[in-house]
């Protein structure tokens, strides 16, 4: 692989990568500068994406070209939120917020069972009849893990010296193992990203990797 040190794309990527990695030594002005620029760029990207995905199609295509005038209502609703910058009329901003919260609450009540129930079903019903003895054992262990971890979250019952207390204590260890596994996976994923950045610096940019 040949070195492409002065290729604009590689050079920009390398400068950005080194600017971020410089934080490992200590907080420094270069990192601060990049951090602020990055926030601005990301925000600008989301504005462009939102504009072309929802704002422009709604106004130009739906309202102006197709004549769906009912879409004027959500447009006005969305714009009402800016009344929060007018102190004497900031109560008007409650209307879009109320719509969003109500929609969200309704959505949870209406659609969450569809994703949640299969998980409960698979835990509580299907812990037998698997192909091998080990599969059956794993299903039973999974069942015990879910029940005991759920018992840990019972905060309104007396736990000391009761079966719920014993289950909750077991559940605490199950949760610790689960969190440890999640932590290990996260570290691994981050290290993979780091290796990717090193491959870019040493391979794509400097051409030191074969």
């Amino acid at each position, binding site marked *: 692989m040949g070195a492409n040190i002065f290729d604009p794309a590689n050079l920009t990527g390398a400068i*950005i990568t080194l600017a*971020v990695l410089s934080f490992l030594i200590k907080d420094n002005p270069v990192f601060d500068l990049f*951090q*602020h620029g*990055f926030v*601005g*760029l990301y*925000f600008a*990207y989301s504005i*462009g994406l*939102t504009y*072309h995905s929802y704002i422009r199609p*709604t106004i130009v295509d739906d309202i102006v070209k197709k004549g769906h005038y009912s*879409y004027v209502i*959500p*447009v006005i609703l969305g714009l009402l939120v800016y009344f*929060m910058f007018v102190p004497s009329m*900031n*109560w008007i*901003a*409650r*209307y*879009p*917020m*109320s*719509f*969003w919260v109500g*929609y969200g*609450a*309704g*959505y949870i*009540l*209406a*659609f969450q069972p569809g994703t949640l129930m299969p998980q409960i079903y698979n835990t509580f019903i299907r812990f037998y009849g698997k192909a091998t003895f080990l599969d059956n054992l*794993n299903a039973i*262990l*999974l069942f015990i*893990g*879910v029940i*005991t*971890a*759920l018992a840990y*979250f019972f905060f309104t019952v007396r736990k000391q010296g009761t079966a719920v207390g014993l289950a909750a204590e077991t559940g*605490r260890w*199950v949760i*610790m*193992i*689960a969190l*440890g*596994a*999640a932590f*290990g*996976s*996260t*570290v*691994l994923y*981050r290290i993979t*990203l780091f290796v*990717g*950045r090193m491959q870019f610096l040493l391979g794509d940019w400097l051409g030191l990797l074969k």
Partner: protein
Amino acid sequence: MRKELPIIVTVLSGLVVIFSRYFHYGMQLGLMDTLDKWYLVSASFAILLGVVNMVKIHWGYIRRRKEGWWNSIVLLLCLFGYGALTVQQTVDGPQAAWIYNNLITPGDSTMFALIAFFISSAAYRAFRVRTKEATVLLITAVIVLLGKAPIGDALINGWGTLADWILKVPNTGGFRAIIIGAAIGAFATGFRILLGLERAHLGGTGTK
């Protein structure tokens, strides 16, 4: 009425979603599609709220010459410059896509890669506390970390199988319980909102 009417809006919008989902007539009316569109459009028009807030804060830093104020200039330049570019030529436009691929993407992945060092040092500090829970957490993390990489099986045959078992059984069990618990919490909050008992979203905009 400045509080009662927004509560009515909240309850009605929530009930319309439920009606559209659980009632045959509601499904036939196709209200859910309309409401989905309304939600997405109204929320997208609110995106400039963040821009207004950000400009207010950083313009204040620049005016007061707060320490590091030049960073705020860079932020605003990137925000308005790249914002105008993406609006003018879409995010897939030649210059906009170049900036995304060569500035945002490497910066994003390096930022996430950086976290590896900080969470590792956090784990080390947690381990130094020497509680039984922290020890179990760390041992599990090491088993999974090495087991999912080629070095695990190279060190001890079967390490990868153990890591897979941990991910498949105790990890799934623990997280499934957390998800079920969180879902019950979300359900309860949803009911409270629809019954008008939860009004936190109406606060912070002034009451009369």
